């Protein structure tokens, strides 16, 4: 007779998965941490250099600006991705004709690949025939029209508008589901107490979906720190270093300069910043409504 206790055969069920996971995922991660302390060029032998890679990365003004840029990106992501999604979810939470279609339409951009989206926006940002400039000229703001991607003051923002645009539907779906779960009694109790739409939002809706909102904000920060394929495809960090982010910086160190030790240090720093920022956000914001 069998049992749900451990038996040797169970190991066979886990072995293929664990092998693939450890060899191709965990091992390169540990290797990155280890090689960040060396001056490896990817080919010849290396020597340990202690923490000197880390101090070199930190003293590079290009990397520091790149770090600053992803924090701006994170802030804009929270405001525009999560903010727009929250607003839409709040407006559309009551049943209305066409809500299902809107949900499907809003979510559509999210499942499209970054490279297809970049191609679409390449045509949209075109200096002459692009939709953006045509629109500006049509409403009489033609003086603002420009080559968005080759202008160093707009390149970074033009690129990050693409993932921001794509992710609104994603956060909408999450927040919409969260709002559907708020019991109707709460709103009715609020009506008896005489709420207006604004106080209803602030006192009932917001506290109820707060845990979901914190998850969304954490995901938005994470996305801003990691989604570098848009920058890579659209500007490759340029013009100059005007749209450089830590991940494109790392890529260039690894694959253009073969600085595997130095690049690993930049990678470890980005990993640490991501982990620290998201856990601080989670802890800090998570506590906001706990007293209720």
């Amino acid at each position, binding site marked *: 007779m069998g049992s749900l206790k451990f038996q040797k055969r169970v190991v066979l069920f886990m072995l293929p998965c664990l092998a693939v996971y450890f060899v191709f995922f965990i091992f390169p991660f540990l290797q990155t941490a280890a090689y960040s302390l060396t001056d490896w060029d990817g080919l010849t032998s290396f020597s340990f250099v202690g923490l000197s890679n880390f101090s070199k990365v930190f003293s590079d003004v290009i990397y520091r600006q790149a770090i600053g840029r992803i924090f701006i990106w994170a802030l804009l992501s929270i405001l525009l991705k999560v903010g727009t999604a929250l607003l839409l979810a709040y*407006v*559309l939470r009551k049943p209305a004709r066409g809500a299902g279609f809107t949900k499907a339409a809003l979510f559509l951009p999210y499942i499209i690949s970054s490279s297809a989206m970049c*191609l679409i926006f*390449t045509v949209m940002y075109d200096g002459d025939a692009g939709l953006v400039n045509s629109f500006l000229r049509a409403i009489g703001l033609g003086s603002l029209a420009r080559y968005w991607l080759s202008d160093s003051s707009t390149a970074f923002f033009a690129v990050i508008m693409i993932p921001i645009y794509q992710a609104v539907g994603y956060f909408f779906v999450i927040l919409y*589901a969260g709002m559907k779960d708020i019991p109707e009694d709460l709103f009715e109790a609020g009506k008896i107490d005489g709420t207006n739409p604004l106080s209803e939002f602030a006192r009932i809706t917001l506290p109820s979906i707060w845990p979901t909102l914190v998850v969304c904000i954490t995901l938005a920060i994470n996305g801003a720190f990691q989604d570098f394929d848009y920058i890579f495809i659209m500007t490759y960090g340029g013009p100059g270093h005007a749209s450089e982010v830590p991940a494109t910086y790392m890529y260039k160190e690894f694959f253009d300069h073969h600085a*595997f030790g130095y690049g690993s240090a930049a990678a470890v720093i980005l990993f640490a910043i991501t982990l620290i920022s998201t856990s601080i956000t989670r802890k800090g914001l998570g506590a906001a409504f706990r007293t209720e």
Partner: protein
Amino acid sequence: MAKLTFPKIGRMLVLLTASVASMLPIYWTLVNSFRSNTQIMNSFRLFPENLDFKNYASIFAVSSLPTYFLNSCITTGSAMILVGALALTCSFALSTYKFKFAKLIHLIIVAGIFIPSTTTMGMTYKLLQTLNLLGSRPGIILLYTSGRMALSIFLLTAYMKSIPDAIKEAALMDGCGPWRMLVSIVAPLSRNGLLVVMILTFIGVWNDYIWSMILLPSSSKRTLTVGLAFFRGEFFTDNGQLSACVIVGLVPILIGYLFLQDKIINGIASSAVKG
């Protein structure tokens, strides 16, 4: 009735604006894919002048688009099967049998959700180079599989743990071995979880750009996403052909979305909240 009209109209307007804004870029690209570059440069049209498939014909004749498309299908299909099989067997062992290290192994795997793949790009490249898997299909398929494992096992074990122990114990009484237990009890009862895992893998792998670019330097194995980004350089002057390329790349995702919309939306939303 009259009192309700204003908020109702406002809501309708929001619905309409949101839908139009979400679909406009894709729709505009579809329209442009039927127009010549000169037509696109000269005027904005809501409908193409006529249904001209010239752009499609020329990208299929000149470019390696069909090869890239096939590569994407093979890579994504293999990764889906491998992720499904490995995550299913491993989650089964971790969630059904009670043993000392089950919790620890589960924790170590799930912790991988917090390791972004950008962190490991340099060393993964070196690893595949050492194993002689660089530029090969098995190499990138194994890499995608390992990258999807943390989230997949996290989701699948959650589904499997919700199967009552009584059902599994009844199966034991009937003399079910581990293999029969997986095939006839646990797998059928967690098929929704498996479907979500496969859908997420499909979207993630089909749309991936970074790994395909780093690990497949030769163009013969290149996937569609990287191919598309290359076209951005090649056809930079022809917006019509660029648009046609985009539409071809979107077709599989759009067909999947059309049929599995609710499963996709709910799957992605629930994986986010649980994660």
